[in-house]
């Protein structure tokens, strides 16, 4: 059963910005990753789900209700982490959380306390003076405190240190086990692959891939820059039948998808000085989804 459905969603901001004919569905009890580089249209899509924006064309629904018309009803069982944390500056963290609980008309329960403990958050300070990570934690608590059925998370781990990122991922996995449906946007595949069962990749507002995490992992291409002793060795190395992206001086850049063993065996036979993996953009990681790279 699909909990959230996006059908033919269009919003054109001009200059190729916006979302264009997005369609997909998220099933009950699924953690769905929404992956794309900055400016790809992730937040625009999420604003439609939240009922902040009215679709120019198409529609989206959550729990069978229209995201624009029934936005207030949808919010009863929805938790949201915005991409940017802006609170009411004059409040302390605790005041804000208790304001949100009363504003939502929920009884204060042990849940808030438990979440604060889980993220080791002392929320007594003024929000204005909090660091980005602390604000992010407040946002997380505010999104989970009413035990929502559906969670919409816009880059939820930004600003968190690795330890807290792990705590957050644990929380998501627990929620998934409890049958909650989660949509999470991110610009890092590593983050999404640990939690999500299915992933949609968006670029320039268009859906370029929608697949299981396993399938995407198989499609994942990694670049390795191998430094050899001299240029002759590099040239010979490049002729070994690996997928070569670039040769410059004594460095060879190869693209490896699943044939890491092949690379290792070739490297064994050559005077390799150094190997490194440069930071890659999503486009580079999923080259075949983005229409193939150079070879």
């Amino acid at each position, binding site marked *: 059963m699909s909990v959230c459905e996006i059908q033919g969603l269009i919003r054109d901001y001009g200059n190729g910005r916006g979302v264009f004919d997005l369609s997909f569905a998220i099933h009950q009890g699924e953690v769905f990753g929404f992956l794309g580089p900055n400016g790809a249209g992730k937040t625009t899509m999420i604003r439609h789900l*939240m009922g902040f924006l*009215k679709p120019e064309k198409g529609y989206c629904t959550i729990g069978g209700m229209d995201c624009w018309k029934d936005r*207030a009803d949808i919010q*009863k069982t929805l938790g949201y982490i915005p991409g940017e944390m802006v609170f009411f500056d004059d409040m302390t963290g605790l005041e804000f959380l208790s304001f949100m609980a*009363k*504003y939502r008309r929920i009884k204060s329960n042990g849940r808030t306390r438990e979440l604060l403990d889980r993220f080791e958050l002392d929320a007594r300070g003024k929000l204005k003076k909090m660091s980005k990570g602390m604000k992010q934690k407040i946002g997380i608590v505010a999104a989970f405190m009413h035990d929502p059925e559906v969670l919409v998370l816009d880059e939820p781990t930004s600003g968190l240190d690795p330890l807290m990122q792990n705590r957050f991922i644990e929380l998501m996995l627990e929620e998934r086990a409890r049958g909650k449906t989660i949509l999470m946007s991110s610009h890092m595949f590593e983050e999404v692959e640990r939690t999500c069962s299915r992933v949609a990749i968006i670029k320039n507002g268009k859906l370029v891939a929608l697949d299981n995490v396993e399938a995407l992992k198989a499609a994942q291409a990694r670049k390795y820059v191998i430094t050899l002793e001299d240029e002759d060795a590099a040239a010979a190395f490049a002729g070994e039948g690996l997928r070569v992206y670039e040769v410059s001086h004594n460095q060879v850049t190869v693209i490896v998808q699943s044939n890491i063993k092949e690379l290792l065996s070739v490297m064994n036979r050559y005077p390799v000085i150094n190997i490194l993996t440069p930071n890659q953009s999503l486009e580079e990681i999923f080259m075949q989804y983005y229409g193939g790279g150079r070879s």
Partner: protein
Amino acid sequence: MINWTLYKRGIRESWKMLAIFAAVITMYFTIIISMFDPALGSALNEFAKAMPELMAIVGMTPATAELVSFLEAYLYGFIMLVFPMLYCILSANKLIVRHVDRGSMTYLLSAPVKRETVAFTQMKVMVTGLFALVFYATLLGLVNCEISFPGELNIRKFILLNIGALCLQLYVGGICFLSSCIFNDSKYALGVGAGIPVLGFIIQMMANAGKELEKMKYATFFTLFDSEGIIAGEPDAIWGMIALCAGAMVLFSSAIVVFSRKDLHI
């Protein structure tokens, strides 16, 4: 239709600003009422005689020697127009567009609270403040006059005058609030929301100033608040009050509709 948690927060946020305006009004009321002298004509009347144009611009030309007429001329032509107007401008800006502009509106709307409710509640906060301010001025005037000049004040007319001032300020508030709901950027909301009432006020001052410019009074809604007419008991002045009040309701309703239907990039 109203979210009390948000309402309480709004009131808590406004009271400091209201207290400052109340203090300013207290100062003016006390000083100006003390200048009234039923027998000799007040010091202010001497000013009015010495520089009639300047005093006319800010509406300070009493029609009669009555106390209520004196208050109308020296307090309800400038002080009670400008300060509540300032409150409207600042309050409307703070209640809606600032949250949209900064992004904190996200939290008000990611909860099962309708946009209509958010806008209506914020409007109530603003209107409550306005009522409080005008009510305080009324009380202040009454108490001050009764202490200094017992029995001199025509209370019925004075209260009517304050109701008139409230109608005008509700209309001003409506403009500011609508502007706050239309724009997504504080700059523009403030420009239009403050610009229209301030321009209207300047036009009124110009119309007060000279004979040739008098026709300009038809170009500003401030004319609908005919304080002299209210004191003189003219029916047209009452109709002006009703028109302002009705206009305010239209403005506020439009503001709520606009806010509920617009796209929010938050």
